[in-house]
């Protein structure tokens, strides 16, 4: 069992000089967070509160200004195969078709062509794109690209999945299916996951825990144990879960937390 730990992490984007330069921007302040590999921690927060920045730190794309990030005690010094990322803007490779994008991490591992194609095709089918393997990236719709991005990250079989609004561009039905898929594949693979989402419902359904990131600078202001995902995996109907009073109470509570300190601003 692996553990991803944020200890007192802060992040300041340095000032940009030159024309239209900006000042230093403190984006995250004193973040403490632990994600174990049997968990899925959902992060919710306002637009611009620093969710993507937090994920980029975990991925190793950014180095914290202060504090440390570790995986099983070893400091994160850069990106690595143990932490696969699904990007907010799909970062798919335009020179590869959908199948080869998904097979990309397998190619990196040296999996033979036929096998990696087969595995990519299986993943394509599981994200509902069985017949889109030959398509170029620009021939896919926004939602399709998101799903290819998810499949690509899964193909890497990482210890942690870092998901940045992976289901944002999907319609309700496809989204529900993908939620179910994510839940199951996470359980199967035993990978830990960090999920950024704008849907409080999604956060509650998928997350073992839900944390709230408040903006300016980004701080974790709340943390809730959810646990509905276990129920669903044990066979509970999603509709029933959503209809349960405790779910509704938590939903309302989180909504309030996100809105906290904003009403006066809006007034």
């Amino acid at each position, binding site marked *: 069992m692996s553990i991803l730990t944020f200890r007192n992490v802060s992040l300041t984007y340095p000032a940009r000089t030159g024309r239209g330069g900006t000042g230093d921007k403190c984006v995250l302040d004193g973040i403490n967070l632990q994600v174990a590999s049997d968990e899925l921690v959902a992060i919710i927060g306002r637009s611009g509160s620093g969710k993507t920045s937090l994920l980029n730190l975990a*991925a*190793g*794309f950014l180095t914290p200004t202060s504090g440390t990030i570790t995986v099983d005690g070893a400091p994160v010094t*850069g*990106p*690595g*195969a143990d*932490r*696969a*990322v699904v*990007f907010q*803007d799909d*970062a798919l*490779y*335009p*020179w590869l078709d959908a199948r080869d994008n998904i097979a*990309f*991490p397998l*190619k*990196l*591992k040296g999996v033979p062509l036929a096998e990696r194609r087969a595995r990519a095709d299986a993943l394509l089918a599981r994200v509902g794109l069985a017949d889109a393997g030959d398509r*170029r*990236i*620009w021939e896919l719709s926004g939602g399709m690209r998101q799903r290819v991005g998810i499949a*690509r*990250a899964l193909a*890497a079989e*990482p210890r942690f999945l*870092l998901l940045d609004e992976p289901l944002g561009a999907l319609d309700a039905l496809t989204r529900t299916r993908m939620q179910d898929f994510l839940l199951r594949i996470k359980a199967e693979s035993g990978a830990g996951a960090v999920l950024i989402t704008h849907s409080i419902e999604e956060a509650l359904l998928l997350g073992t825990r839900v944390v709230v990131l408040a903006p300016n600078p980004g701080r974790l202001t709340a943390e809730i144990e959810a646990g509905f995902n276990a129920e669903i995996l044990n066979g509970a109907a999603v509709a029933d879960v959503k209809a349960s009073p405790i779910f509704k109470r938590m939903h309302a509570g989180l909504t309030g937390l996100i809105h906290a300190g904003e009403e006066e601003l809006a007034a």
Partner: protein
Amino acid sequence: MILSTELDVLPIDAKDTEPARATRPIPTALISTLTVGVILGLWGLASAYALVSPVFLPSPRQVVIALYNLVVKGFVDATLAEHVGASLTRIFGALIASIIIGIPAGLAIGTSRVGRGILDPIVEFLRPLPPLAYLPLVIIWVGIGEASKITVIALSMLPSIILSTSAGVRAVSKEHINAARSLGAGKRQVLTEVVLPSAVPSILTGIRIALGAGWTTLVAAELVAATSGIGFMIQSAAQFLVTDIVISGIIVIALIAIFLEYIARLIERRLVPWASHR
């Protein structure tokens, strides 16, 4: 007109995709043919009315005859085919050498601090040097064999390949690199699987520029100790004011270069249909 490979016109006035009634106004090939026709016509008129002395601008007819003689009899002890063969060998030798050296050098400059520290001053030093100035030095160092000609041509090709490669590398999307690294790519893999493919359009442009530069340097390279080659042929003819041969040589160079360019564009079309989709 072979130039029209229809692959690189940006649809500012066409639609992104035109599934139906793709009514192409006038085919580019036709316009190009017309252009070439007009130029040939002007040339014919200029020489017919002797606007320029025939010593410097022979008539198209004369040039065609000269070309025919070149093919059949040859000039300065070699037929046209032999001259072309010799020059093509040099150009391709130089191209291969400069690709083998230039792409890794460009990658090193674009991706690594140490690589850049070492190579940048060398490249920036070599880049502006006039071949006519270092010709004696090249002779001293590599002798007068084929190696010196290939060296001179390659030195003129290298800079554009190195520069386009490193420019292509610099324009690689950071997200693409980050994605690869988080999917388990090592540094080498990032280079081969992301940076290189991303830089391919830029590298291809560099190779096209390099080919042009190579032809440009051909005459200078063949100034020294050549016994055949298009540049040698042109040079020999110019010495004795045999202008129809000079112009034939120029036309042959242009035709070969246009043919190579056509192939380069075909390759480009195959390799980088995604260039405007990133």
